[in-house]
């Protein structure tokens, strides 16, 4: 079994993109990323040798994203966020704000299906196993989501190239 560090190196970016797509906010996504890999590290020695590591991580990320979302909902909003100032330095890192905003506007089912299929690289069968429902329903949700993205996101030709 490879050192866990290799798993972080290989799948770290993928898990972060999935968490961002599902959760929207960058800070929440980073919390979910940490929780995902901590949880994965704990379970790692028991992972079967033939396991699909990608699907395993997306499954954990899915649960952690739900946890983070619930924790957010419980936290009362007291003060508004400080106003964002426009950046003069361009986009931070590989974060395309418009795309993530367009993703964030999708209904939950569509957004998760798009995230797990296009960002996580999972087949619809695996997505259905994670989110519940059937593979067909997951395929329809992803297709509807991408169709909506094409109409709302100006650079929609890039949707397939995100990975």
């Amino acid at each position, binding site marked *: *079994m*490879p*050192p*866990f*560090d290799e798993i*972080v190196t290989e799948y*770290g*970016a993928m898990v*972060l993109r999935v968490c961002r797509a599902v959760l929207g906010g960058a800070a929440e996504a*980073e919390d979910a*990323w*940490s929780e995902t*890999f*901590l949880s994965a*590290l*704990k379970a*790692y*020695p028991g992972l079967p040798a033939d396991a699909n590591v990608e699907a395993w991580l997306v499954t954990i990320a899915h649960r952690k994203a739900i946890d983070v979302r619930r924790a957010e909902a419980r936290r009362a909003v007291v003060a508004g966020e400080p106003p964002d100032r426009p950046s003069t330095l361009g986009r*931070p*890192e*590989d974060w395309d704000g418009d795309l993530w905003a367009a993703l964030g506007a999708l209904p939950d089912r569509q957004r998760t299906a798009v995230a797990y299929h296009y960002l996580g690289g999972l087949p619809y069968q695996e997505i259905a196993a994670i989110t519940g429902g059937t593979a067909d329903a997951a395929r329809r949700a992803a297709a509807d989501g991408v169709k909506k993205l094409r109409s709302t996101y100006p650079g929609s030709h890039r949707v397939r190239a995100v990975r």
Partner: protein
Amino acid sequence: MDEDTTTRLRAKLAAAAERDGVLDVAYRTVDSPVGELLLAATEAGLVRVAFARQDHEAVLENLAEVVSPRVLRAPGRLEEATRQLGEYFDGQRRSFDLPLDFRLSRGFRLAVLTHLAEIGYGKTESYAEVATAAGSPRAVRAVGTACATNPLPLVVPCHRVVRSDGSFGGYAGGPEAKHRLLTMEAA
């Protein structure tokens, strides 16, 4: 994922793993006069020091197999070892004071390594002398093997074991490294 994000997230993960007691093997690499070294520690102490020529990736794979696959780059646990090695290479330190985890060594090899700690800075012993000290005077070849497979070179000073004719003999870090260390210690 850009480098800053990667560094930040990895540091946070390593800290959480340490806190929850699931960081079974922490490792880092450090530059040294004998090339890049890999340092690895369990919760019990330093468990592995490896030279670049020993292939760090293979060393980590072996640790994952023999100790635990819960291996993370986590420099925090190796701060003290890094500091003491730095002092040693600067000529400011003559012996190491670190918790050591000898779980990678057993039997006669462990007996050899235990004796090596008693060979002082700047001193050398022959393979035959070490064999006698470890309790098996005829096991000269086995002493060679024990030195060659020493999981904690530098800290457990196998470089201080030389041939009876005075030549240096082999070294996991390469003959130049052994020469360099012995010259440094003799100065």
